């Protein structure tokens, strides 16, 4: 009977071998895939198993954690002034995932980051509970609050940058949402989530980074920069050859001016009263390709602007015809920009032509507050020379002093700005977008703040919607807040 016994033992060996192969397959070959499957709740359990680190604004945490009982997820995220900071923090929800800083810096916040390996190892021996690191932002709470309060019930967004470094000072989107409302995984959280997700106001959209609008007349500063850079204009006070009426190149369509006195107006005058014809003419003369070149130096057509939250690409069409280019030069047609992009344009001009890479995470801190990463300001590009930047600045100051941007005027501070009222909708039927971009200059000629404001919709009558009227006061409040907080 021994021969069949030996075969049976071989068979038993094969059974065990099959199991050994299977476990290697599951735990080695497929381990990564299985452990990160969407059905695998362990990922989220680990994410909320320890107290998350905080997102910090000017030394104060704007996030927190609290223990949730009777749930797989031990800690729940809380937010201080959630609506105010939502465009900065994003959300971290036990049930609905996470976005923006909460998602991008998740490994620091949970303490899983490789750079925290040493802390974790020490903690393992000292028996300390695992903690998350902190994310220190560049935001200015006064500017953020000013923008949020001034926007009020209007639908809109504000982006403010420190032109000298690229640090983001304010990032507001209204109407906003409170991420605390759906941070857990209860029925109430789900209700709040569904409500927000399906809301007509698109509360969850970060308008400052993730929504593009036709920039309208604010784009004229880009066209002016391009005209100066490419030698189409050298004296901003010299008359241009713009006829009245001005026909779009190759068409019989008149470029309508809402302003008076645009015929042969100088660049300075044209910006002051916002002549469409002059800038359409300039854009045409610069030519499409050179317009694209300058716009791209300002950050247009770049879908990789990470601050570190990725902003949508702003568009300056590379393939349109001459008439399209002329229209695009006044910020209509295919031109589209995020509020961040227009803030970058303003910042580059205010910073004497040097565009600093925008960022909003200043430091990443280990749980013991050691700095594990610090952002160093980086130059992104030079869209225009210092001399030309000086000229555009002069024109923008003139807009505030004598032109459409009067409402941004501040006592004792030089302010440069540009209004914009962008048509949109089929046949321009919808309410126009009100834009305002501006910067404030200190006596030493440096600018601590550049801001872009867009108001998508408001209760004002159509006739009253204008960048100068609606958006400029918001920009002024933000600039004041920044200047005051620096005193």
């Amino acid at each position: 009977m021994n021969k069949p016994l030996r075969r049976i033992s071989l068979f038993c060996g094969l059974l065990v071998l099959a199991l050994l192969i299977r476990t290697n397959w599951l735990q080695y070959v497929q381990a990564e895939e299985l452990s990160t499957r969407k059905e695998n709740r362990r990922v989220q359990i680990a994410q909320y198993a320890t107290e998350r680190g905080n997102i910090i604004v000017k030394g104060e945490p704007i996030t927190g954690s609290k223990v949730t009982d009777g749930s797989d997820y031990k800690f729940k995220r809380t937010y201080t002034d959630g609506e105010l900071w939502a465009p900065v923090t994003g959300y971290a929800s036990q049930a609905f995932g996470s976005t923006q800083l909460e998602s991008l810096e998740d490994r620091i916040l949970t303490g899983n980051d490789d750079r925290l390996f040493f802390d974790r190892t020490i903690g393992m021996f000292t028996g300390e509970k695992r903690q998350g690191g902190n994310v220190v932002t560049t935001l200015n709470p006064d500017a953020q609050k000013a923008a949020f309060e001034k926007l009020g019930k209007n639908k809109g967004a504000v982006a403010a940058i420190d032109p000298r470094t690229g640090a983001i000072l304010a990032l507001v989107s209204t109407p906003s949402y409170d991420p605390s409302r759906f941070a857990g995984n209860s029925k109430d959280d789900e209700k709040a989530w569904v409500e927000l997700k399906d809301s007509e106001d698109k509360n969850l959209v970060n308008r400052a980074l993730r929504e593009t609008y036709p920039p309208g007349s604010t784009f004229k500063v880009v066209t002016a920069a391009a005209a100066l850079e490419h030698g189409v204009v050298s004296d901003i006070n010299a008359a241009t050859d713009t006829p009245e009426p001005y026909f779009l190149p190759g068409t019989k369509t008149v470029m309508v001016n809402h302003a008076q006195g645009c015929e042969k107006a100088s660049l300075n005058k044209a910006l002051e009263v916002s002549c469409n014809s002059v800038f359409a003419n300039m854009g045409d003369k610069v030519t499409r390709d050179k317009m694209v070149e300058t716009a791209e130096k300002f950050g247009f057509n770049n879908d990789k602007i990470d601050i570190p939250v990725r902003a949508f690409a702003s568009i300056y069409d590379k393939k349109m015809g001459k008439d399209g280019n002329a229209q695009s030069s006044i910020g209509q047609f295919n031109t589209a920009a995020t509020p961040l992009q227009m803030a970058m344009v303003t910042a580059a001009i205010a910073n004497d032509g040097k565009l600093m890479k925008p960022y909003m995470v200043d430091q990443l801190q280990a749980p013991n507050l050691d700095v594990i990463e610090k952002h160093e300001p980086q130059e992104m590009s030079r869209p225009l020379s210092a001399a030309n930047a000086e000229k555009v600045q002069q024109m923008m100051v003139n807009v505030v002093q004598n032109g459409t941007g009067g409402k941004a005027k501040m006592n004792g501070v030089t302010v440069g700005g540009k209004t914009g009222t962008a048509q949109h909708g089929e046949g321009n039927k919808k309410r126009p977008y009100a834009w305002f971009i501006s910067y404030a200059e200190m006596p030493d000629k440096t600018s601590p703040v550049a801001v872009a404001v867009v108001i998508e919709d408001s209760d004002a009558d159509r006739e009253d919607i204008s960048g100068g009227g609606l958006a400029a006061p918001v920009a002024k409040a933000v600039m004041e807040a920044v200047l005051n907080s620096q005193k």
Partner: protein
Amino acid sequence: MSVVTNTTTIGAIELPSRRNTELLLLGFAVLIPMFAYANVGLAINGTLPPGMVLYGLGLGALAGIAHLVVRRYAKYADPLLLPLATLLNGLGLVLIWRLDQSERLQNLAKRAFGGFSPSAPRQMMYTAVAIALFAGVLLVLKDHRVLQRFTYISMAGALVLLILPVIPGLGADVFGAKIWISVGGFSIQPGEFAKIVIAIFFAGYLMVKRDALALASRRFMGLYLPRGRDLGPILMIWAMSLLVLVFENDLGTSLLFFGMFVIMLYVATERTSWIVIGLLMSVGGATVVGATASHVKVRVTAWLDPFDCYATSGACEQVGQSIMSFGSGGVLGAGWGQGNSDLIGFAANSDFIFSTVGEELGLAGVMAFLLLYGLIIERGVRTALAARDPFGKLFAIGLSGAFALQIFVVAGGVMGLIPLTGMTMPFLASGGSSVLANWILIAILIRISDTARRPAPAPAPSPDSEMTQVVRPS
């Protein structure tokens, strides 16, 4: 190790008994679970568990008693079986204790049964009873061949055991499987014991009938087909196993019995045709049952794609969770007490206890456990090879074959290698019947191996040698 001397020219040299080896290994088998226990306590509560010393002493005392009984009553037994069983049982206790600490399972139990009672103390008690039974078997059963006398009584006994759970009032339907009976507050799984009893019947029956089955057959298409009257019992067993499956929703047990019978038949008759016939029949049976019985169909679907029905019906939730816990464990595992294998739910400490090994000890731990089981099987098969009597050979191979099949069916099920059957990992899973039955199984293997390795008794003094004595001059 003294050499027995007598007056014969050929002295019988006593085999080494290896009892001291066993004692040393037992030391490790108690020490390793103690470390594991300390590890779980530190991971979950940050302190050494208060019962640690008591636990170590308890396990050590049980192992010591078992060892003394073996030393006294089965001197020549295989030295590995007892330490292996002790180690697995000890680690099983730690795993169960670890799952007792899970808040998630506690809440689940409170919601489902209105209260939570930890399983580890009960398991400890069952272990004590099981080791007492182990000792009892070795004390009472001086020679395994005695069991031959009970061939037909065991058949009847096995049938009764299998049918018990279906009897109304006695059987308890737990989560759809009718494999328990509850007596005076205790639930017993008769199938676990039936495994041993039926092996006695098979071994006794086949020992008698092996020649008839092997030789009285007709050749048909290259296969030796036995006569109908000899084929009767195998058909009966097949039908019985199918019935068990159909009435008790117990795919695993039916597979186990059938596999065990085919293995023993093959060993007894040395005819490969039995393997072929057995395979054909089981495939046939499985196809029919798989296509008709709805709960089997569900399990097959869950096996084919564990994540397909995950969101929709939840039927594959358990298998999916189990596979993910293996995947999340990775190579080194999350560490004792630091995984989330309790996500599997109420079966985490019974059917799916191996998933906890997978997640918390990782690939390394799972392989170690599989090798421990593999060693038990290997020692069992070795015992069968060494046994001198056909009954002992058949009995030992039947038990070890069944053990191997059970490991394969359970581990393969929770790892998604084969459809899930709902059996428990021997020694690891929470449950009294399983612990008791498997300790009895080990006791029997130890008894057979003792008989097999026992040196032949010294021959009686030979009268011839007396004859050649030098006659002293008077």
